[in-house]
């Protein structure tokens, strides 16, 4: 035991030195990216290891959402995020059965015990229980402030699901200060203003900025849909259906057979025609 404590202290010292050296060479880049990181002790101590821990924390958030079960064997693993990012492709609890049934185990007693101990059912957190994923999302961005996905997910779960829009916006604005060029985080702020606050002017400001930033990147058509739909709907809410129509028509080139897009185009054409 006496030998272990010095070894642990040495490991800690090595990690700290590695982080300091890493920080020395990357200092300019870090300063340019974010002033907030300079005061973050956790970030300094853990160095490159923080990315791994941050990722693990995000994986933990997903497993907490599923009652503590890791979704490694599930074909669309990590899907607690899907609902936040691409709502149309979410999944239900009853869609997956990860369990091997007890009768498949034959006469083997030990596998039967292991099967009885392991939790294999598929469930999702609901209602107030959803707050249980928040600590892991918080630690994800504490460990890696450049994890845009964690900011977006945190914003969605806090603002839209748990109905705390002001907390969500505060969190997402911290995300913007650490990731000023992220279209995703701007889009998430716009969505919180739109869905939870009902403040369409503010929503438009952030969604337009997100659109502008997204044009610098080569985003796929699904991300484009995520961005354009709330933008178009926000324009409609402030009485500018012409702009909504333009955005939906642009989306139609990517999704020519999408019924919802077609219906919205028809709706806005009728609205403009009726004026």
């Amino acid at each position: 035991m006496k030998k272990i404590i010095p070894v642990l202290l040495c490991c800690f010292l090595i990690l700290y030195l590695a982080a300091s050296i890493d920080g020395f060479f990357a200092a300019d880049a870090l300063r340019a990216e974010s002033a907030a990181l300079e005061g973050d002790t956790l970030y300094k101590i853990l160095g490159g290891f923080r990315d791994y821990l941050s990722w693990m924390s995000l994986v933990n958030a997903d497993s907490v959402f599923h009652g503590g079960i890791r979704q490694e064997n599930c074909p669309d693993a990590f899907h607690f995020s899907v609902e936040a990012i691409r709502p149309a492709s979410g999944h239900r609890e009853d869609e997956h059965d990860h369990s091997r049934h007890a009768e498949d185990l034959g006469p083997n007693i030990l596998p039967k015990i292991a099967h009885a101990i392991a939790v294999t059912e598929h469930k999702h957190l609901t209602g107030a229980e959803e707050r249980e994923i928040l600590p892991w999302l918080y630690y994800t961005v504490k460990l890696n402030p450049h994890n845009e996905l964690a900011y977006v997910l945190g914003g969605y779960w806090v603002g839209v699901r748990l109905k705390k829009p002001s907390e969500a916006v505060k969190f997402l604005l911290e995300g913007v200060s650490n990731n000023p060029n992220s279209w995703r985080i701007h889009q998430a702020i716009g969505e919180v203003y739109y869905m939870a606050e009902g403040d369409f002017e503010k929503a438009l400001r952030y969604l337009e900025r997100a659109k502008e930033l997204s044009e610098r990147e080569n985003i796929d058509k699904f991300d484009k849909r995520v961005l354009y739909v709330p933008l178009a709907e926000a324009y409609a809410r402030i009485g500018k259906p012409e702009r909504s129509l333009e955005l939906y028509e642009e989306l139609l080139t990517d999704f020519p057979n999408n019924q919802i897009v077609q219906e919205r185009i028809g709706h806005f054409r009728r609205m403009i025609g009726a004026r």
Partner: protein
Amino acid sequence: MKILTIARHSFKELIRKKDFAVLFILFIALIGFFYTESFFGTSDASRYLKDIGFSLITLFSIVIALTFSAKQIPAELAERTVYPLLAKPVSRTEFVLGKYVGSVLMSVGSFTVFFALYAGVIATKGEGTSLVMLAQSYLFGALLLTLLSAVSIFFSLFLTLSANVTLTFLIYFLIRWVNTTIQEVILTSKGAVSALYSFIYYLLPHFEFYDIKIRLVHHWDPLPAWVVCSVVGYTVVYVTLILWGAVRSFKRKSL
């Protein structure tokens, strides 16, 4: 009686050392830090605390169990205190069993103190927890330490302290990792392959049986009585076999 005397002697010796106190203070500091955290203006979330707290008490208790068990017999041999002890009417069997019981008392005792504090902390935050689940978690934690102490005592007859601690830790994590895979191979293969993997599967200690953290943290149902009894029975059988091996090896050892 002689076993208990040796056990009591080992336990007192271990109590005098400060290892447990260091880990206990570290645990209080860490659990205190996580307890006072609030996220997005809410302090109601509690499963993260249960999760991190349980992982910490398991880790700390394993460290105590392994380091204490691993040095019991080698220390007596190195300091030559084993000779006067064995010169008295104490058999080698009683000596090994006494050392084992002392290690179990120390590691389960430490775990009990950690667990009591942990249970108090989680009862006061968030959604609370089921008493049955809490009792099962305690029992399974104690059983794990009982098994690990036996494995460590067994290896201490052949390995140095550091090699023993490293190997037992490695075995613990490796088995936790591969046992499910081996189980899948047994169930999906046939013939010689299935027989070979079955042999390995039944030979290795099943440390994964004792991990019911998910059930405790995420409010799943407690385990049925037959599972609890099976795990207790499994531990008793496995520990008996390991200690039998340890006693046999110690009897053959030239001192």
